[in-house]
């Protein structure tokens, strides 16, 4: 039986992008955040006597963080394939441009789901608890998938436009920093935040993913989470459209 083109592309993307360097970025870095930040900030909140488990708060945040990391890997796949000639080589092969793009998007999604599952496993080893309801896992899965598509598309959009290596890396690092730290991944949205930061938190799509995953993880899902996911869904469609358009119009070669 002949394997469909898209599956062959996904297989190739996984093989090429699961070298030790990529795995450290995908799993090692978020895992370290979970352990070091989790225990580090846990000690502060414990000494303050609040009794809140920061590790339990951080776990769904770090699971959501995976969508950004997987998105950057997706953007890097397109950028590297163009830079090192494989994009044009694949596009003179039996694939369409859209299949290639879908291959990257789906690979990013798989990385995000896999990474979130690993974080869930690490958190279980550290905390000894995890969600018990199947519904919670369903919501987490859906939020991660939508988030992965959004950030995958965003990074593809950027990599379709930026041709310089330095510029691409700078934009990527800046984006990761702003998106992660101006979201509810590491801390809750509190009224004590300056207005500008609060606004940034509220419009950041990663906040929507983190809040929804956290709600499902801790069993506190609310109507706000559903609303946030709906907004994220619309934003995802828009950014996906822009990414596909930019990619289809872009030159396939680096030169």
């Amino acid at each position, binding site marked *: 039986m002949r394997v469909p083109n898209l599956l062959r592309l996904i297989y190739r993307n996984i093989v090429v992008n699961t070298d030790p360097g990529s795995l450290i970025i995908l799993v090692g870095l978020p895992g370290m955040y979970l352990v070091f930040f989790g225990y580090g900030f846990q000690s502060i909140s414990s000494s303050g006597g609040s009794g809140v488990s920061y590790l339990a708060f951080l776990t769904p945040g770090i699971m959501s963080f995976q969508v950004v990391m997987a998105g950057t890997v997706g953007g890097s796949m397109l950028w590297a394939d163009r830079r090192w000639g494989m994009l044009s080589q694949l596009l*003179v*092969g*039996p*694939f369409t441009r859209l299949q290639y793009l879908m291959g990257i998007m789906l690979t990013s999604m798989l990385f995000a789901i896999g990474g979130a599952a690993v974080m869930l496993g690490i958190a279980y080893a550290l905390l000894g608890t995890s969600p018990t309801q199947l519904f919670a896992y369903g919501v987490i899965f859906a939020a991660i998938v939508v988030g992965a598509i959004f950030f995958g598309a965003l990074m593809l959009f950027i990599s379709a436009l930026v041709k310089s290596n330095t510029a691409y890396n700078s934009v990527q690092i800046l984006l990761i920093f702003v998106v992660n730290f101006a979201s509810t991944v590491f801390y809750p949205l509190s009224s004590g935040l300056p207005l500008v930061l609060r606004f940034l938190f509220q419009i950041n799509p990663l906040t929507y993913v983190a809040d929804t995953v956290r709600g499902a993880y801790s069993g506190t899902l609310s109507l706000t989470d559903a609303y946030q996911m709906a907004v994220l869904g619309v934003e995802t469609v828009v950014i996906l459209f822009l990414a596909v358009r930019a990619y289809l119009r872009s030159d396939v070669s680096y030169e």
Partner: protein
Amino acid sequence: MVYAENLRHSYDRRRLALDGVSFTVRRGEVFGLLGRNGAGKSTLIKAMTTLIQPTSGTLRVLGMDPAREGQKIRSRIGVVQQGESFDFTTVQRNLDLYGILWGIPKVERTRRREELMTRFGLDEIRKRRAFDLSGGQKRRVQVAREFMHDMEVLFLDEPTVGLDVIMRRTLLDSVRDEVRRGLTVVFTTHNLEEADYLCDRVAVIDEGKILVLDSLENLKQLYGGKKTIDLTVGNGDAARFYSTLTERLGTRATVTTKGGSAVILTEDPKEALSKIAELSQAMGIQLEWLNVRKNTLEDVFLRSVGHGGESIASA
């Protein structure tokens, strides 16, 4: 296999990369595209392999329109691009992955990979990462990789750049073997010797236009007679010697001089040699080098792109 009529392409709407190109590639032949850097060879390859759509004109590959049936065309062709293209993995894995991408079953994939590893001398570097290889090694991997899958037309865009003499010959012989089995090849090169070795017909392209298109033998005969005499004189007044020789040979030969050397194109080399001998004796000129040879593709190329003769219309 390929039909092009009045193809034009412009990247920036100012300069035409292809300017009214027309040609046909026949089944089972090796069709060479010769030209200088920037002549339009790679643009033509990109158009035929569906990477770009020509601005105007008609193009058919395997009877199909690349604009509408690009994927069908691509699933029946092979392309070795001019630039390097690899995955960040070992040589062996690169070949394997390429076979997977083309849907080659595992047993057949392994068989082809091992056969190609041996044929292209890749055994010793199979565990090395493709990006760590030398230029020639990379080229070998790239060409070998393309033979991992079946195809009806193979497009080779300057495949021998960076290869040593032995590997170059191995590659050309491999292509010849495949042609004997029915493969059609479109081949671009600067290297006229290898075009001479491999191609059935060649098109000389310059500034986006095909200047000449014919079989090698016809081209060599069309340009300046059947034989070329290379001549170098060692003493005396070379300029006067060559001007007198040109007068005596008349319209039956063309003499091109540079310092003490001359290239004489003639249909009657015996007559030319006798005139050279007579004149050198009469003028006391010593002949340092005298060589009679068949016209080469280099003569055709140089004359067609404007270094020694008029161009002729494409066939």
